[in-house]
Every structure is written in C-alpha cells, then in structure tokens.
C-alpha cells in the first residue's frame, strides 16, 4: 500500500511540471495557430491523460478504499479476535491461578502429611522406647518366645534375676532347657495349645530357682504378631510374697478366731463367776445380815429393859449398820439385774412416763414448795420399765438435793442434741456438785456428799448410766457447788418405730 502511495505521488509531480512549458510556448506570436492547435491537442491529450489518470486515481482510490475497508474489516476481525484471545487469556490465567492454588494446597497437604509421618515415626520410636523401658523395668517377668522353635528371644531383667540366671544364659534356649521350668508341661505341648487357643495360663506354678529356692508364680502366655513373625509372650508374676501374705492372713485369722474363742470362753467364765458372785451376794450375804438384825431385835425384846441406855444405843447402831448393808446388797443386786435383764423395747412416751413417775413422789413431796416445769417431751424407743427407773432416780435425786431449798425448782426438758439422738435434761436448783468430780457421779457407790448431808448408797446414777448405755445413749451432768445440777441423758433415735 505504501508503495502504491509513493508511485502516485511521483506521477502527480510530473503532471504539475507540464503546464509551465505550455505557458512558455504561448508567448511565441509566429507560430500562433499551429501552435494553438498543437497546444489544444496536447491539452486534450493531457486532459485525457489527466482524466485517465484521474480515473485511474479514482479506481486506485476506490481500490484503496476497498482495501482500506477490507483492512478495516480485517482490523475489526483482528480486534475481535484479539478480544477473544484476551478473554481466553484471562480465563486461562484464572485457571492457572486456580491450578496454582490447588497446587499450593496439595503442597501444604503433602507437608502436613510429611509432618504427620515424621511425628508418627517419632511416636513409634517413643513407643518402642517406652515398651523397652517397661520391659526392662517391669516387676513381672516377661519372656518372648519364638512360636515355632519355642526358643527364648528375649527375657527381661526381672525374670532372669528372679530365676538366678543371666540374660545370656537364657537367650536362645527353650524353656524346657532351663531348670526352673523343667516340671512345667513339655514345651511342645504348651506350644501346641497356645497355637490352638492363643493363650495358655498356669496358676500358682512352683518354680525352683537356680539356688534352689521355691517360688510361686502365675504364668500367662499369649500369642502376638510382630511384623510377619508370630511370637509368644509369657508374663510371669511372682506371687510368692502374695501367697506368703495370704498364708499369714489365714494364720492370723485362725489365730484371731482362736483368741476370740479363748476370750469369749474367758468372758463366759467371768460372766458365770459374776453370776455366781451375785447369787452368793444375794443368798449368802443376806442370810447373816438377817441373823444380825433378827437377833439384835430379839435381844432388844428380851433384854432391852435391863440394858443401859448406852447398851441400847449400841444395839441400835448394830441394827442400823446391818440395815444399811442390806440396802447396799439390794442396790448391788438391782444394779446387776439392770445390766442383765433382757430389754423389751417399745415406743415410750416420755411425757406420759414423767407424769406417771411424778405421781409416785406425791407423798414424798408433801409440804414442800416445789415448782415443776415439765416441757414437751418426745416419744423414744426403749424399755419402759428401765427408762422409768432412770426417771425415778433422776427425779428422786433432784428432790433429795433441793431439800434444803425453801423454794425448789425442777425443770424437765428436751434439748436438741446431736443428730440421731434425743436428749432429756433434768435441772434443779439444789446443792449441785463440784464439777471436778463430775466423772465420779456415775460410779457404783460413788457419793459426793456425806451420808449426814444426803442419804443414799450411791447406786442410783450408776443404774441410770447402765440403763442409758444399754439403750446406746449417753448420760452426763453439769453443776456447780450450791448452784444446782443438770443431768442429761440421750436416747438414739436412729431406729424407725416398728410398732
């Protein structure tokens, strides 16, 4: 196209130079006509030529336009193609990106997988190490045998030490070769059974160590797969100490039972002796007392008149002393009975029982100013007659020790004790007691006051305590000298009422 353009331009140049020569010839007057014709001809030719050239130019122009159009079309097409190409390129790029992302992800995964592999390899190494340590440090014997040959592949220190061998002495031997296992069933049999059942165990096997000691073991063999090899693992537990301990326990139990039996027999004898004693007290001591009293009375009847006043006083002292001894004996017998008599437990309404008991004291309290303060009392489970004895003792004590008070106050109440028990209190404003001797109050024949101050044998509180103890409760007291006393007793409430 450029070439065509340059040709066209040169022709235009030559065409421009022609008219100038024509103008020069017109200036010649001699040759005017001929010249004019010539010139016209020439002009016409030139015109024709020009026209032809114009036509040619036109054609060329047209051609050029056509070519231009074609070129434009081609350009457009090219652009379109370019655009398409670009779009395809973009898509390709996008795909490439995606592919790259996927590749990255794949690489990541690969890395992770590698990391995992590494870790699991480490875990395996650690596990092996741990197993090895367990194997080495186990306090059970471990024996690894080849299932085909029955030879020892490995043995842990515990076992070879236990049997008195070295590792080297045991390795690659069959267990039948080793002294300690000689009496266990033949290795072939064991191998056969273990192949069949997967496990073989022996309880309380007696093995002889190299130095001739007998040890007791439990042996368990089982099959396991190690890679492509089948192995037998025997666990051997030394139960010598356990058996010794069991034996010891058995021996101690027998001994204990024997001791219990002996003790029971001794207690039975002691109990029988006590029975005999109490019988003897009941029968043999009361006899002579009856005689002393009887003959003192007979003497008084027969010779009282002829005796001096002093003589009669002595006779009176003999009777008094004998009577007091009689009371002591009776009290002791009561105390013994309180401990022995079978208990008949029922629901006992303490409020009713207190009311009943108080009516017994009406005669005794006649003429005295006493303020009774009886609070609401619960129902407990116990032996009615024994509990009545407790109340009689405590109320009679309160009355006795408030005797010197112009206005006695006796309060019977119910306080909340610790869980599972009912606590009853009996408070008085009487003579009280020295709290230092509070622990002596409940002893048999223990008295904190002289006979002249307050009479009594000192058995009452011992009975109270014995009865309360038999009910599974406690008895205690608080008091100060001249400041009154409070006696407490508790009865367990644990048992739900059954009647």
């Amino acid at each position, binding site marked *: 196209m450029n070439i065509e353009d340059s040709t066209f331009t040169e022709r235009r140049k030559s065409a421009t130079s022609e008219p100038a020569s024509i103008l020069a010839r017109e200036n010649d007057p001699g040759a005017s006509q001929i010249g004019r014709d010539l010139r016209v001809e020439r002009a016409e030719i030139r015109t024709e030529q020009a026209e032809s050239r114009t036509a040619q130019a036109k054609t060329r122009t047209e051609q050029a336009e056509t070519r231009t159009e074609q070129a434009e079309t081609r350009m457009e097409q090219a652009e379109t193609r370019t655009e398409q190409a670009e779009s395809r390129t973009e898509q390709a790029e996008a795909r490439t990106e995606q592919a790259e992302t996927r590749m990255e992800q794949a690489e990541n995964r690969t890395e992770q997988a590698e990391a995992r592999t590494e870790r699991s390899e480490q875990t395996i190494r650690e596990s092996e190490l741990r197993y090895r340590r367990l194997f080495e440090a186990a306090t059970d014997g471990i024996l690894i045998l080849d299932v085909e040959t029955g030879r020892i592949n490995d043995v842990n220190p515990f076992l070879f030490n236990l049997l008195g061998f070295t590792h080297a002495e045991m390795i690659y031997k069959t267990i039948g070769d080793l002294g300690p296992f000689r009496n266990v069933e033949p290795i072939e049999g064991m191998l056969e059974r273990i192949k069949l059942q997967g496990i073989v165990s022996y309880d309380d096997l007696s093995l002889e160590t190299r130095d001739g000691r007998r040890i007791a073991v439990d042996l368990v063999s089982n099959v396991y797969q190690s890679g492509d090899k089948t192995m037998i693992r025997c666990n051997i537990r030394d139960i010598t100490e356990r058996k010794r301990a069991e034996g010891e326990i058995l021996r101690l139990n027998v001994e204990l039972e024997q001791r219990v039996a002996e003790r029971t027999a001794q207690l039975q004898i002691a109990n029988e002796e006590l029975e005999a004693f*109490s*019988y003897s007290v*009941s*029968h*043999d001591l*009361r*006899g002579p*007392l*009856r*005689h002393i*009293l*009887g*003959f*003192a*009375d*007979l003497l008084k009847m027969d010779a009282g008149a002829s005796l001096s006043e002093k003589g009669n006083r002595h006779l009176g002292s003999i009777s008094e002393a*004998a*009577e007091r001894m*009689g009371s002591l*004996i009776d009290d002791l*017998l009561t105390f013994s009975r309180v401990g022995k008599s079978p208990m008949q437990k029922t629901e006992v309404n303490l409020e009713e029982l207190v009311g009943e008991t108080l009516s017994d004291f009406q005669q005794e309290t006649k003429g005295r100013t006493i303020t009774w303060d009886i609070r609401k009392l619960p129902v407990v489970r116990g032996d009615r007659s024994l509990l009545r004895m407790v109340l009689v003792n405590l109320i009679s004590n309160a009355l006795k020790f408030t005797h010197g008070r112009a206005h006695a106050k006796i309060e019977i109440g119910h306080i909340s004790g610790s869980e599972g028990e009912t606590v009853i209190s009996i408070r008085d404003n009487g003579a009280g007691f020295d709290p230092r001797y509070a622990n002596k109050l409940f002893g048999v024949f223990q008295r904190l006051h002289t006979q002249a101050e307050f009479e009594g044998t000192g058995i009452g509180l011992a009975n109270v305590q014995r009865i309360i103890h038999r009910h599974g409760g406690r008895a205690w007291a608080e008091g100060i000298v001249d400041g009154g006393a409070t006696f407490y007793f508790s009865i367990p409430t644990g048992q739900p009422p059954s009647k």
Partner: protein
Amino acid sequence: MNGSIANVKKILLVEDDPRDVELTLAALQEYHLDRTVAVVDNGAEALDYLYRRGKFKTRPEGDPVVVLLDNKMPKLNGLEVLTTMKTDSRLKMIPVVVLTSSRETPDLLEFYRTGCNAYVVKPVNFSEFINAIKQLGVFWAIINEVPVHEEIEEPSAAAAGVEEI
C-alpha cells in the same frame, strides 16, 4: 383355830441354818404355831421325815400341812426335795412354800416349774421377816384346807429312787 395343840396340824421346816430356824420359830411363836413345827436341817432328812423312814421311822402318822423349804442346803437342796415330792403321788398333795434368800429369777422360775405353791424371799429386816413368817403360818397351817386322802403305807417307787441320790 381349834385351840387344842394336838389338833393343830404339823408344819415341816427344812432349814440348815440353826439361826434361821430360831428366828423362824420366834416368828411362829405368836400364834403358838412354833410348837407344831418339825424341823430337819437338810433335804435328805426332809424326805426321811416325809416317808417315815430312818430316824423318823417311828414318828406318828400323818403328813405336814405345809413344808417350809429352804433351798441352799448340804446334800439334797430344796429344789431336789421338791422335785422328789412332786413326782410322788402322795407327797405332791402337800403344799410347799420355798423360803429362801435368793431373789434370783432363774431359781424362782425353776421352783414354780417344779410345782412349788409359793416362793418367799426372807426379808432381811426382822419385823418384816416376822410378819412374813406369821402370815405364812396362819395361812397354810390354819386357813388353808388340806385334801383328805387315803394313807399309803408302802413307800412309793419314787421314794425308793431317792435313797440312791
């Protein structure tokens, strides 16, 4: 009361302790019952008396209206005497009052099981003792009627067995 001593029926007191015998007799004295009391000091003699044998072979015929029986005695004790009496068709008709120092429940039950008619614990206090014995004497020797039965001359089989004990 018939007033005549001869008609007052006999009481047999089986008691080994002479002091108890004396006190018991003193208690019975008030109604003159002491004069009708036969005293033996052990169980074997009590049975000899009841069967009219040994040193009692010659005693007048007739059973006591009541036996006051101590328990703790040498040779045969009270319970053994009672057991023998209650297995003898004739002697088992005689009321037996156990007069003892023992308040022990097992003793008491054993005596009643064997067939005693009363069980009395001797009071330590003398006036109570006197009172108790007097009441016993009056009730058993005077108030209580005894069954009339045919005399059996032959010693029973039970009595023959007793001698071996």
